[in-house]
């Protein structure tokens, strides 16, 4: 189990590095550093979820999974907004011909890799946490 988890972590780190590499390449190749905002957006995306996840979990609602509270929903709403922003911003920039079309595609792919890595990592992490209970 430990070896498998180490392998998973190394694999995820590599995917994360490839994602950042694609975003940075999309900036460097056309000498336009605006696509770097995509990386920032996707790194910020899980933050509202993480912050508001603790608002709904008092003793009572925790036993029912705590999914019923407004703050948790607000966190999810803001997270979905930021993720959509991350995908929409390069498209808008490319549409306005601020960045090159290829840079748009590369930054979207890289951002998807980064966010997928974050999602997978948090899912694996929460699985390990639940083994304690």
């Amino acid at each position, binding site marked *: 189990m430990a070896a498998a988890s180490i392998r998973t972590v190394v694999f995820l780190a590599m995917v994360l590095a490839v994602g950042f590499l694609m975003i940075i390449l999309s900036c460097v190749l056309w000498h336009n550093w605006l696509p770097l905002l995509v990386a920032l957006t996707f790194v910020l995306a899980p933050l509202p979820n993480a912050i508001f996840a603790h608002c709904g979990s008092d003793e009572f609602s925790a036993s029912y999974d705590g999914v019923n509270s407004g703050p948790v929903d607000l966190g999810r709403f803001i997270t*979905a907004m930021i993720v959509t922003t991350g995908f929409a911003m390069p498209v808008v920039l490319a*549409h*306005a011909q601020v960045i090159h079309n290829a840079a748009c595609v590369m930054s979207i792919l890289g951002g998807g890799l980064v966010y997928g890595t974050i999602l997978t990592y948090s899912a694996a992490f929460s699985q390990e946490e639940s083994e304690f209970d």
Partner: protein
Amino acid sequence: MSLPRSQYDPRRVCLNPFPNVDFGKHRRTVGVYLSGALFALAYWVFLDACIISKHAKAPWGPPDDPAPAPVHVTFVDWIPGLCSLLGFLVINLIDKDRVRGDENFGDARAVWRARLFLFVGFALMAGGLAGSVTVLVIKYIMPEYPDAFKYYGYANVTQNVALMLSVVILWMAQNTPSEYEYNLTL
């Protein structure tokens, strides 16, 4: 002539006939995520039109005859989106249990007031949608601008439709019976 027995109180005019769609256990989560994504999409489509309008200042038309762009996104285009945003906030500030009409708890007049504000919220959203269509027709289609400028109007309509879908999905997602009530009724 006798009226058939109905499932609801026949004196009510405004029902909330949202269908009971079943997405399984995670439908609340999925609905909230989908609603947030639609909300952001709405504003990005509109901002796209704004940004392109700003960049259209550069010579428009053939290079030998640079003319200024005939029309721009102005404050008029923002008004329907602002109306829809206001309606979005009003609808989401309403306590959902009040509207459902459980008059067993609390005072009955709160139900009446909640329904009134729900009506105001949906009227604001519908007003935003109608306003966006009005802007599209009057400002962009009737003067017969080229398609590149009609896009501003279509983006405006898209924004308001997406905002309306977003609020409906959010309402449906939050109206689903929670796990707690579910456990009680089973």
